[in-house]
């Protein structure tokens, strides 16, 4: 980041190109620029010219219409750098595809290169109109994914912040714990030593060795307890990081169908993204079309003397016998397979299964099973 100092280190003899007043006369003078044309002018000129609404740039030869709210202070001393940074920010705001959206690393790299080219074109004023048009078209067509990726970036930024804070907090806590532990240990050690000395002083000589051993053991226990406590904290941190990753790791679902829009041609190698379509209504037939026929249209009833007796038989009727079922069966059987040309289709089928012939005879069973499963 370029520091303000660069600008604060102002030239005493700097002159506003519009009103010609110089800093020498007005030490508090501030210069502003507008990213439309990057012509520098002093704050009072901006107030004077643009307070009543948009107006053209007062610099001779520049016809850009400028708005007051767009004026800002220069960040970089070199106005060229200032402009490039602005362009870059704007382009990257639009072409904000993420690596995970691409088929391959290569495709992503190509994208980055393409983006740099666009930026370079705009900076160097090559094919500006065309490039701008492309950029606009892309921005419109991919509005959703742009927004989604912006949101993601923001989210990442905030979660990064949070993570930093979290880490700082943890460090602080760890230090505190360590400090407390050290304190308590020190206190305890002191107490033990005192106790030790008292016991030694009051006890017999035989006890001395046993008492000394005991004290050593207690010390060991403490340090191992501390170690396990450290482990626990470390694990907790790892777990925290894990959930963090999981939360941010779902960017793909929100992207729009860039793969199929006409603008997709603009950026190559984008992964085909399946937008979760709105759930289709439940189809009780699961794709099959009931009652579809190609050779005939079934009637409600057929004039067929052979069936008359059945039609008038009340017992048959009461049993639920349904002539419609008979009609539909006979008609289906009349035409099922009419257009199956056995000679042709079976020859084709045999040719396919004959491909397995080249296999050694011992595995022919397996070969057949394999053929069966491939086709299934």
């Amino acid at each position: 980041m370029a520091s303000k100092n660069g600008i604060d280190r102002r030239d005493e003899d700097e002159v506003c190109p519009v009103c010609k007043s110089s800093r020498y006369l007005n030490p508090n003078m501030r210069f502003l620029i507008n990213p439309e044309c990057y012509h520098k002018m002093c704050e009072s000129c901006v107030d004077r010219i643009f307070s009543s609404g948009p107006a053209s740039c007062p610099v001779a030869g520049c016809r850009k219409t400028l708005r007051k709210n767009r004026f800002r202070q220069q960040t970089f001393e070199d106005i060229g750098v200032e402009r490039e940074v602005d362009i870059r920010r704007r382009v990257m705001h639009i072409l904000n595809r993420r690596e995970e959206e691409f088929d391959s690393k290569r495709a992503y790299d190509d994208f980055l290169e393409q983006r740099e080219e666009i930026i370079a074109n705009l900076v160097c004023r090559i094919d500006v109109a065309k490039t701008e048009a492309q950029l606009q078209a892309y921005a419109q067509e991919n509005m959703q994914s742009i927004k989604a990726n912006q949101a993601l970036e923001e989210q990442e930024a905030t979660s990064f912040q949070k993570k930093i804070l979290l880490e700082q907090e943890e460090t602080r806590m760890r230090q505190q714990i360590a400090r407390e532990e050290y304190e308590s240990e020190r206190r305890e050690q002191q107490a033990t030593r005192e106790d030790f000395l008292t016991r030694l002083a009051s006890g017999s000589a035989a006890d001395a060795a046993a008492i000394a051993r005991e004290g050593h053991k207690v010390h060991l226990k403490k340090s191992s307890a501390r170690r396990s406590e450290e482990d626990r904290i470390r694990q907790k941190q790892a777990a925290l990081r894990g959930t963090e990753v999981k939360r941010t790791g779902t960017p793909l679902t929100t992207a729009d169908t860039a793969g199929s829009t006409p603008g997709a041609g603009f950026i190559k190698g984008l992964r085909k993204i399946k937008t979760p379509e709105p759930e289709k209504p439940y189809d009780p037939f699961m794709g099959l079309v009931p009652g579809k026929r190609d050779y005939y249209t079934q009637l409600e009833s057929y004039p067929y003397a052979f069936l008359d007796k059945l039609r008038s038989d009340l017992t048959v009727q009461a049993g639920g016998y349904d002539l419609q079922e008979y009609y539909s069966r006979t008609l289906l059987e009349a035409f099922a397979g009419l257009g199956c040309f056995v000679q042709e289709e079976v020859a084709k089928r045999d040719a396919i299964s004959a491909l397995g012939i080249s296999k050694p005879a011992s595995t022919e069973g397996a070969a057949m099973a394999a053929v069966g499963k491939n086709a299934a």
Partner: protein
Amino acid sequence: MALSPFASRSPSVTVASPSSALRLKAAATHHAPGQAVTAKSDPNPERELTEQLNDDVRRKYVKGKKLGEGTYAIVYLGHFRDDPSSCVAIKKIKVNAEYKDGLTMDAIREVKYLQELSHRNVIALHDVFSSKDQNLNLVLEFLPGGDLEMLIKDGDIHYGVGDVKAWMGMLARGVWFCHENFVLHRDIKPNNLLIAADGEVKLADFGLARSFADPYLNMTHQVITRWYRPPELLFGAKQYSGAVDVWSMGMVFAELLLRVPLLAGMSDLDQISKICEAFGTPTEENWPGVTQLANYVTDKAVPLRGREFFLQQFPTAGPVGADLLMSMCVLDPRKRATALQVLQHKWWATEPRPTKNEDLPRKSGTKKMGDDLARRGGETDDGPFKNAARQLDFGGMK
């Protein structure tokens, strides 16, 4: 119907017609006629072609541990020889020494219809082969999720109307597909509705299935487990339609909502009177011709139940769901909904949406597919009534 023939067909589609299988064989034998074929497991190269084809099918699978055993069948876990991660259930049908008439009708029906039906909600028959001792081995889709009866009975499992809707949708699709192919299932009940690993419900046990719709052709009325048997069969109708399966579906629907069987009759007569109590007494007015059915009997006159009854009895289904259930429980089979109409009902589109398969409740225990499969074939597991349909004298059928 628009039944996609490209829907997941079992491998047997491509088991290769004998001609193509033959070519494989021909390639093997022509090189070395009379010599041992390279296949190690076949010490006798001069097998009949038909046996060679059978062996080809048999070698596609590896039989694993036993999952269950019953009087008529043993079920093994198995897998494709070239894919140990695959799972199939190999159901070996035991030769029934007491049944002198060859292969039992159960087995014949199951094989015949499953060979033709290929649908997501019908258990897939991958292959059939014979093993030694002339045992029939059916290679079936492995369905480890238990059955609907287990879910209904398991008090630890809680499910809602969205789950019921999902299960009923799968059941109705399976039944509709069978009817579109002119096959009646004739034994729809919760324990014949098996659940795949992905939660899909599959219609299983085609031991009582038959094709239908031919005029002037009698069928037996001694089918469908009693609690799920429609009134026209209890009254002895010999010509009937897909409506019999729809009634059973209605009973399953009610049982899913209530978590107990709706009409648990102790005998055929008791079943009739329970139906009358629940839905009203069949009369010539509400069911023209019913009094002419061979076994028509009624003991009390209960007026036909209206919509309020269903709304009150099945509040969880919601008003639209209660309407659907009512349309499946109409006494007169001609006025009962067809499987197609069931699927066209607006209940499917009303809230809540059917639960996705992955979110459906699963069985808690570790009962296996074999338990189910092995049980069929006449064994009684739930008292003397549950499998009445199994104890049929098939000699009296046509």
